[in-house]
């Protein structure tokens, strides 16, 4: 989780990733952020996020992103 938080902060230092729960629904993250975040987590966690996983429920909070990563590592 710590590594993920590093990545997220690196993408958008202005966003409060600890508490935000509607990163997508409220339009906080923009497309470029998602490109950056997905490329970074693919590399850091040795996974391949697919198009079908690019859904708001997987990216609305740091926790949701973390759960997606964990489910892919199983």
């Amino acid at each position, binding site marked *: 989780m710590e590594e993920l938080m590093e990545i997220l902060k*690196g*993408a*958008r*230092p*202005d966003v409060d990733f600890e508490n935000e729960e509607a990163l*997508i629904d409220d*339009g*906080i*993250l*923009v*497309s*470029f952020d*998602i*490109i950056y975040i*997905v*490329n970074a987590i693919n590399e850091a966690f040795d996974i391949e996020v*697919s*198009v*079908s*996983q*690019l*859904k*708001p429920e997987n*990216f609305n909070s740091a926790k949701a992103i973390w759960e997606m990563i964990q489910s892919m590592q199983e």
Partner: protein
Amino acid sequence: MNEYNVLSFLESSAAKYPDRIAFKDKDEEINYSDLLVRCQKIAFVVRKNVQQEPFDKNRPVAVFIDRNIKSLQLFLSVVYSGNFYVPIDPTLPADRIQSMLDTLKPLCCLSATTRKLPVEADSFDSLIEQSEHVDDNYSETLNKIRELVIDTDPVYAIFTSGTTGVPKSVIVSHRSVIDLVHRFAESFPFPDVPVMANQAPFDFDVSVKDIYNSLNLGGTVVIVPKSYFVMPAALLPYLQENNVNVLIWAVSALRIVQNFKLFDACIPESISLVMFSGEIMPVKCLNYLMDHWKNATFVNLYGPTEITCNCSSYIIRERLQDTDNIPIGKSFANTEMFLVDPDTLKRIRTTGEKGEICVKGSCLALGYYRNPEQTDMAFVQDPEVTAYKDLMYRTGDLGYYDEAGNLYYAGRKDHQIKHMGHRIEMGEIETVVNALDEVKMACAVYKESKEMIYLYYSADEACDDIIIRQIRKLLPAYMLPNKFVYMPELPMNAHAKIDRKKLTELD
């Protein structure tokens, strides 16, 4: 047809194809004949509500936009009212919106969004409601206004980043938009009935091309929800469902298709024309698109907002090598482009030699609204013409010509950047940060390889959080630096200025 008002495009298509869908979003659609009548009635209501004098015209009307067809209807209503529209994104910081309104001093504010606004605005729904009760003589009033309007009157103004920390508003006339639309129709292979997927936000002039080209050709503009570019699983299926055949998109949007390999899941087959602009198109991305849309025509477009969207184009005939540069091509008809030495303004005519790109023609904007200083710096007399008034626009972009006479983009002469499709002056970020008490000196630098804005600053101590909290109130999210780097002192060069070059090279 001898048009001198952009509304002629709408009227001519409404006469030919009254039942065709003109605009469509996720929730609703409107056909040409309804669009025409509705916009005329709203225009009448707008004038009546502010009691605009019969001879009064060309006043700014702020329109708070959203990704919907209501926004487009309000734009055209404002044009019918004899005024010009200024799209404003309601998600911008309130202080920034206020500074825009301070510049504009608008006749009134209209709203196409349900978002909370920092000022009062007439909502689309209330305007519709009022327009149901207008007298039958509304068309007579509108005809009179129409007679007043000439083609050098403004249609819209669009805000763009300004180095002084205050956004500049580029104001564009009917003549320029009409010129653009004719150049597009004669230069590019539009399908018989174009269906254009609108990607660009309405406060970007890329969207001007969707709106007026489609009205001219009797096409349909399908507005793509913004969220589809953030979570793009639904993006290409949406294009397919709507039989979209034309894309006039920012490079950054097309890169999303490539970045997430969206063709793995869906290849919309109806696409026949793909035009892109705003940034340098990476060849890797272009090849990915060309490999999957084999029968489509691909066009690289170039131009800043100040010359009304685009002034040059290059049609890509075949797949390119990874190391190739894509030219920005040749100027449109009725547009002159040339290179000058940025210091002496002398013409550069040697192939391969770099110079500042300058543009002349009907495409030139009317300047920056209520900003004569900035206008006079960018829209200048052509020094080769001394016998009469002849303006050219200095783009600040550098370019060079190849043997075949194609122009190539070669960077900026100043510190303006393109980031995620947005045009940003580093100076605007610096002005805002330097205004903070905690900060001694600040320098914003764009690291191209990482596509990130770095802010280097000196202060008594590191204070990233304070800076972030303060500048969020003034700058749109896309202008916020991605990295904050505290330094006890910023490096200086021999001229006692911040050594930008050194900061750019830092890892």
